[in-house]
């Protein structure tokens, strides 16, 4: 037996060609009943509240709101997330991975070693920078080597011409070594200076990444190099032949798409 709604539908359709909303059951319109469209387009509503489409964008673009009063659009993502990192403990070349647009660099110069006059070696300087690499493919990377002999200076680390940090200095004239310095990054700093004690041992300088080896008044374990990257080596008091070696520099490159 025909219902009232179906009868209304039948007559209405024949008279005007319209289908009243009430005549369509919930969940009755299938995808197959919708008009065909363009591959990738997305249905939205325009400022008048009428149905509209967001046209298909390019690969890797994202749907971006235009705020109230305008439909969203496909656009290139602004910024982007962390993607990968490259670690340099020796000199080499940084090569940009595909899709990377921005990098953050952290680097330290190497520390100086200590000597037999109680003078600790200083730590290397520190620099940090953020660089737009959309038009860069490779950058030369220099990493200051560790001072593995006594009373030896640290060396410079550099990320091309973007930022650099010098190595720590060895002790001299009854004082610990002077620290290395960073430059040309957005954050630049000195390393820690080397310690000196007229009759004892002077500590190795502390770098951005941490301290030097442990201080001690004995001759044990002076030359094992348990320093943080860029840290200076301990100076040993007069009368001993050992010294604290330093740790090499470090260049970290964080990559963002």
């Amino acid at each position, binding site marked *: 037996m025909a219902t009232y709604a179906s009868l209304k539908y039948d007559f209405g359709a024949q008279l005007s060609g319209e289908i009243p909303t009430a005549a369509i059951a919930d969940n009755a319109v299938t995808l197959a009943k919708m008009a065909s469209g363009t591959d990738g387009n997305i249905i939205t509503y325009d400022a008048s509240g009428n149905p509209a489409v967001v046209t298909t964008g390019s690969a890797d673009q994202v749907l971006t709101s235009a705020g109230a009063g305008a439909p969203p659009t496909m656009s290139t993502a602004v910024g982007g997330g962390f993607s990968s990192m490259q670690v340099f403990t020796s*000199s080499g070349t940084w090569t940009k991975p595909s899709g990377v647009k921005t990098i953050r660099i952290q680097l330290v110069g190497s520390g100086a070693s200590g000597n037999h006059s*109680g003078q600790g070696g200083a730590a290397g300087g520190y*620099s940090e920078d953020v660089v737009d690499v959309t038009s860069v493919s490779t950058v*030369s990377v*220099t990493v200051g080597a560790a001072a593995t002999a006594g009373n030896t*200076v640290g*060396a*410079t680390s*550099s990320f*091309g*011409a*973007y*930022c*650099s940090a*010098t*190595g720590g*200095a*060895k002790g*001299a*004239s*009854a004082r610990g070594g*002077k620290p*290395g*310095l960073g*430059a*040309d*990054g957005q954050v630049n700093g000195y390393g820690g200076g080397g310690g000196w004690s*007229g*009759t*004892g041992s002077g500590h190795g300088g502390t770098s951005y990444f941490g301290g030097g080896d442990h201080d001690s008044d004995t001759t044990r374990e002076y030359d094992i190099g348990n320093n943080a990257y860029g840290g200076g080596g301990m100076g040993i008091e*007069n009368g001993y032949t050992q010294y604290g070696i330093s740790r090499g520099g470090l260049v970290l490159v964080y990559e963002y798409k």
Partner: protein
Amino acid sequence: MKKILVVAANNYVAEVTDKEFEVSPSFVWKTVDNDDVQQGWTYVPDDNSVFDTDKVWLATDEGKRHKMVTDRQMAYGKIGDQLDALYRDLRDDTTKWVDHITAVKAATPKADRVDPLEKDTVTGE
């Protein structure tokens, strides 16, 4: 001839090396005709020379004073060793500690032009 990496702002010699590498703008490479140059020296742009910063400073009154004090500190020895020497002197009725201190002071006289009324910062003498 030596290649040196100089901090442009203050002419500090940051590194001595045989091979240049790319650095940021705050540093400049120079080649100097002094094979003795070391990190920590000072570069002189006017005549492209270098000098030992510490050596020059040690020749000043302040530097001489510094060297005298630190030389004495090292020669006196550790405080613990000195206390031990005092203990032995008291126990044995000897003067080894005083003799040692006297010998250090004689071997390391006060630097020229140091105020004669100024006390030794270590011994107060």
